[in-house]
């Protein structure tokens, strides 16, 4: 089981890496136009590496990664740990 704080930390780091600048926890990434849908795919891939998880993105939408809290919620809902 993943620790929520660990997910939050990884989400904030990954978002900052993709956006190329520090990100506040409540900062909107997709709906504000800061990152586009292709960057969300890169963000998902980065989160999978950082947390050693698998995120099946087919049933997700970019705004499921709109801010750090939403990312944590999405990961807790859909992610599967990798063996």
């Amino acid at each position, binding site marked *: 089981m993943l620790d929520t704080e660990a997910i939050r930390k990884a989400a904030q780091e990954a978002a900052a890496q993709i956006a190329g600048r520090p990100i506040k926890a409540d900062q909107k990434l997709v709906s504000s136009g800061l990152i586009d*849908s292709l960057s969300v795919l890169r963000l998902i891939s980065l989160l999978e590496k950082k947390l050693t998880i698998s995120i099946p993105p087919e049933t997700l*939408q970019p705004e499921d990664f709109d801010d750090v809290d939403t990312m944590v919620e999405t990961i807790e809902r859909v992610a599967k740990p990798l063996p």
Partner: protein
Amino acid sequence: MAFNSSPYLILLIVAVAVYWLLPVGARRIFVFLASLAFYASWGIVFVWLPLFVAVIVYACGKQMQAEPGSGKRWAWLGITCLLALLAIFKYRGFLWGNLAMLTGWPEASSRFLAASFAFPMGISFYTFEAIGYLIDVRQGRVKMPPFLDLCLFFFFWPNILSGPMVRARELVPQLGFHKAFEARFIFEGADRVIWGLVQKTVIANVLGVWVDRGFAPGLHSRPSTLDGWFLAIAFGLQIYFDFAGYTNMAIGTARLLGVTLPENFRQPYHAATPPEFWARWHMTLSRWIRDYLFFPINAKWQGAPLPLYLSLMGVMGLVGLWHGAGWTFILWGLMHGTYLVLYRMYEAWRNLRPGVAETRAIAAVWRVGTLGAVLAAWVVFRATDLSQAGRVLSVMFYRFAVGSNYPALFYAYTVVIAVVCAVEPVVLKRLGEIEERAEAEGLSPFRVMARPIAYLFGLLLFLLFDVNNAQFIYSQF
């Protein structure tokens, strides 16, 4: 009944007054009946269509919730029915015409088929909203509301004709109409309605008279290079102020009822790259395409280059087809697809060379190139047929010809409106600052008088310029 008509404005004032006087429990029925009456004013025979769309979504959505194991099947059944409706009501003539061309069947049959019944207003918008709704239910994002709420979601008169294209989770929670009256709803709504009227009548309709002349059906002469460029710029401005004007009126109408609709434009001609243009132009359609088509396709392929480029072309071709049943619209979409592919290729090339900095010159080339490319695509969008589009594009880019065949007022007006478009972000920022300062200062004579004077001036302009009685361009899609 068009938004840009005096009867609509009078009825809007009456409807808003009645709405706020009614008890909360009666507002939903009132808005539903007003929405039915509004849609029926465009043709009573098609009132059943949004209702039928609601029945499809309700039936399939309920089944998806009852049998989660077969949810995918119900979602596909619903989506297929909705696409079939769209094909029958919007694309039958186009599909039959192309089939007739390929098979040698008489072409007259396609014209007869196309003219056999009229085009139901708003069908492209509410069928796409319905498809989005089904996908959201399938993904567990929304629950099925009561049937009346679902009908109201599709019929809601501020946005049934041409959007903004809303998601269920944005609008359905607001359809209880529980908000208590606040004066700011009226100010915010009236600001948008009157500015939308001015954009439509004073800017879009005036430019439209000259643009119609330049793209008249059967016009075979080649314009001069100057006229070709001015026609492209004038149409780019006309369609922006026409659609943004409509959107402002739709958002403003909803705001008068205390409802918030999503924004559709963010100064699109200030985009620095082709993807940024689509993040600023018709934002609710771009969001739909991104969420329900582009993202799932590319998630499957993890953003690999070839599927990315193919999906960009395919998706933008569909965006073109969504706008209209004609090859000019499809070509317009494919042109935008090409711009997006070229930018993604450049981005991939740059990512492989982290040491190469993006200079101001390169950024400027992308900015100017994006604007030029968007204008070139508008020529194809507006042209009556592909040969007319080819003639205008040829004089713009390589078959240069001197001359000017329009009154001086056309060139001057186009330049003035282009300047308005260029300074729009600065003006909006400044207006926001003035509003904030005025709020901080409390009531002042300026603040009390500014709005009524601005409204009267806007309405006066509307009455003076409303001679063309032109439809909104996007109401044809």
